[in-house]
């Protein structure tokens, strides 16, 4: 007779091994290593909160320091490889397999470990895809999470940086897995309950508060005139054209420039109330002036941003906050919102090829994807209509005898040359070489050309929706690739023709006076301006101050 309850029995056995270390659910920090050694078994699938922003850093350190003779061949599943410890576990032989989404800070070391055969990558995912697999074939057996606080029963308060925690804990707890949480403090009563105690097995107060990285702050002082020009083109040529009201911005100085031009340039075009009302977005400080000016009705966030806490609490009509006043973020839900409930994604990239495929892959670094593939792809399951979605769908399908449907606007915004005169437009993405050298099944493409609706450079906007042949598409891209080798190799007559048909539009065609593209157009030109705009509520991290 088959035993149908093996997981629960196994869970019980692990809890029994750890019982002597606990007081209720609480375990002392000094016993953390003993706890992990007791509850982990070789080959376990372990989820560690390497989120985009917050990190279960104490647990990561303990995990990396375990005896590989006892705990080995773990299969790590996590969103982000952010800390050195996230790779130390492989270096030391505690873990051997990895499924993840993003590894920006650790990309170079990851590539090295892969090259040395010390780490076996299952796959690189976009966040929502990885979360989905937690409920299918990558369910964690043990999850190491972090929270702001726990109460004595084991309820958790994850606060503004809730991020991935609810998704991870749900997948683990309801498949008889083990959830261990590091918390900044253990209190009698929590501001609110984000994760119920029933779902949590162990709580450890870490010696230091868990690390949170301010990834979404962009100093307006670093925005260039070229970026201001591109932002003007985005607002007039796309946001106004399609009446984009529901959107996500990929983080960068280009999009920060757009956010800072809303109260000034967009306002002067009469666009308040007609664009940019609902956002799936982290609480970018650069959005403060647009919020204060009345452009923004709602923002749902993947995670929080250091320094924005008090501002968010003072603007509950805009942000998603609990009855306690603090924000609640949720990466899985925000990613779902970005996929289905937004009409436009706009972001930057490192390289674009002649098909419009874009990639941030570079040799010697395995950086992964993060959320961009999900945000920056057409949502084929979508059914509800909006003016922007219908218009984009019509432009793509007109005259082709296809079943009509809408399409998401996916805009790639990039200067033709990057630093050190590296062209952003290439005949062949570095992704191909990286795939070969790292043994990947496919070249790692961030956003597929088939999903890209527009490419925006300082030279103009290429509307790929209106292209009807591969050749038109290629020349449209060359037509905005400026003086890069790709751009200089354009078919001049074809590009002129595309411009006549409105497939390529230059700043002049959009009625934009380039001499107005100065930093004076920014609603805030410094971090201090952002603090002022927030009425003193925004409290920037030290590294962004110059006062």
């Amino acid at each position, binding site marked *: 007779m088959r035993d149908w309850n093996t997981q629960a029995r196994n869970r019980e056995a692990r809890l029994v091994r750890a019982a002597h270390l606990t007081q209720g659910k609480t375990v002392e920090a000094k016993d953390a290593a003993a706890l992990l050694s007791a509850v982990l078994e070789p080959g376990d699938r372990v989820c560690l909160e390497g989120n985009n922003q917050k990190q279960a850093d104490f647990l990561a350190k303990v995990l990396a320091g375990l005896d590989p003779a006892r705990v080995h061949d773990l299969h790590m599943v996590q969103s982000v490889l952010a800390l050195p410890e996230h790779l130390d576990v492989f270096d030391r032989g505690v873990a051997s397999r990895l499924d993840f989404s993003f590894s920006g800070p650790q990309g170079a070391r990851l590539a090295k470990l892969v090259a040395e055969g010390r780490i076996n990558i299952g796959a690189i995912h976009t966040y929502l895809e990885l979360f989905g697999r937690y409920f299918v074939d990558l369910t964690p057996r043990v999850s190491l999470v972090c929270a702001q606080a726990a109460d004595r029963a084991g309820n958790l308060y994850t606060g503004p940086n809730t991020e991935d925690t609810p998704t991870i804990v749900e997948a683990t707890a309801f498949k008889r897995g083990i959830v261990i949480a590091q918390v900044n403090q253990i209190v009698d009563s929590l501001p609110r309950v984000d994760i119920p105690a029933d779902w949590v097995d162990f709580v450890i107060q870490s010696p230091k508060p868990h690390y949170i990285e301010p990834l979404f702050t962009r100093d307006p002082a670093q925005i260039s005139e070229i970026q201001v020009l591109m932002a003007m083109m985005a607002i007039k040529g796309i946001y106004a054209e399609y009446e984009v009201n529901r959107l996500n911005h990929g983080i960068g100085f280009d999009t920060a420039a757009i956010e800072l031009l809303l109260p000034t340039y967009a306002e002067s075009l009469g666009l308040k109330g007609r664009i940019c009302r609902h956002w799936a977005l982290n609480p970018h400080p650069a959005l403060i002036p647009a919020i204060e000016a009345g452009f923004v009705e709602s923002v749902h966030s993947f995670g929080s941003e250091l320094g924005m806490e008090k501002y968010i609490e003072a603007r509950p009509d805009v942000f998603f906050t609990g009855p306690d006043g603090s924000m609640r973020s949720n990466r899985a839900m925000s990613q779902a919102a970005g996929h289905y409930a937004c009409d436009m994604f706009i972001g930057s990239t490192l390289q674009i090829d002649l098909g419009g495929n874009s990639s941030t892959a570079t040799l010697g670094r395995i950086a992964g994807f993060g959320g961009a593939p999900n945000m920056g792809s057409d949502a084929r399951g979508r059914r509800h209509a909006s003016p922007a979605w219908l218009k984009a769908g019509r432009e793509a399908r007109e005259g082709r005898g296809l079943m009509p449907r809408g399409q998401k606007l996916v805009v790639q915004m990039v200067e033709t040359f990057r630093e050190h005169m590296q062209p952003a437009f290439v005949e062949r993405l570095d992704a191909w070489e990286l795939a070969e050298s790292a043994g990947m099944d496919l070249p790692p493409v961030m956003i597929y050309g088939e999903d890209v609706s527009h490419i925006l450079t300082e030279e103009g906007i290429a509307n790929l929706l209106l292209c009807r042949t591969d050749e038109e598409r290629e020349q449209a891209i060359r037509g905005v690739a400026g003086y890069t080798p790709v751009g200089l190799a354009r078919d001049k007559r074809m590009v002129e023709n595309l411009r006549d048909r409105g497939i390529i539009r230059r700043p002049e065609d959009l009625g934009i006076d380039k001499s107005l593209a100065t*930093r*004076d157009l920014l609603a805030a030109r*410094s971090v201090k301006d952002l603090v002022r705009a927030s009425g003193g509520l925004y409290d920037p991290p*030290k*590294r962004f*101050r110059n*006062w």
Partner: protein
Amino acid sequence: MTQSYYEASARERLAAVLDPSSFQEILPPSARVMSPHLRQLDTPAAFDDGIIVGEGRLDGQPVLAAAQEGGFMGGAVGEVHGAKLVGLLERALDTRPTAVLLLVESGGVRLHEANAGLIAVSEVMRAVLAVRGAGIPVIVLDGGQFGCFGGMGIVARLCDTVIISEEGRLGLSGPEVIETTCGVEEFDSRDRALVWRTVGGKHRTLLGEAGELVADATAAFRAAAIRALALTPDLSLEALEREHAALGQRIERFGECHDAVDIWRALGVEDPERLPLLEAADFNTVTAGKRA
């Protein structure tokens, strides 16, 4: 929005601080008086070697003015750059303007030019004292990204007054140099709030190194410069002895203080932690009469 002094180029600052259209540049870019040293080092050079000098008017009064371009080599002083500044100061002895304005933004000596740069700065120091000795005030404006450090920091304190914004910094060794030499425990240069508490405009004003704190606006700098036109240089022995006594007292009063906030508290400022958050006008109100 008002024009930011911090954001403006050296040329834009001169145009905004002086009376409209009154500035006549001496040795303009078209004269191509450039650094011979940078060419030898195969390093990009500027037509004006990073400093604009000339004459103009301020509130109708004749002035000589110089502005350093921080965007070029951090405003560092090379041989030609220094010679233009010295030449301007020596011209003051001939033309007797109401004042000389120095819109400083400099990390100090241009290391590329080694001894030539060092000599240039020392000649600037001597020329400043000669101008002041002739009864002509030399007024410094400090509010750019690169601050006023090294040899130019010393030059600034040889002048009659420093008009500074909160973003402006005034010091000798740069924060990174202090950290590299003395360790991060001594001074963490990445703790920007600490850097500004230590060498920034507000602390310099409270300590008496700067004469006036203004908002980051070219209009505010202009207004303060106009007020400073009334200054008369005092190089008397009494003045020097007063300065020495004040510096001696400073060590006695604040020698045990660990951080600028402790000094501000000792000066009788209420809620000193909030000072960095105040706008210039509020800062001046709150700290009126409280100077080291």
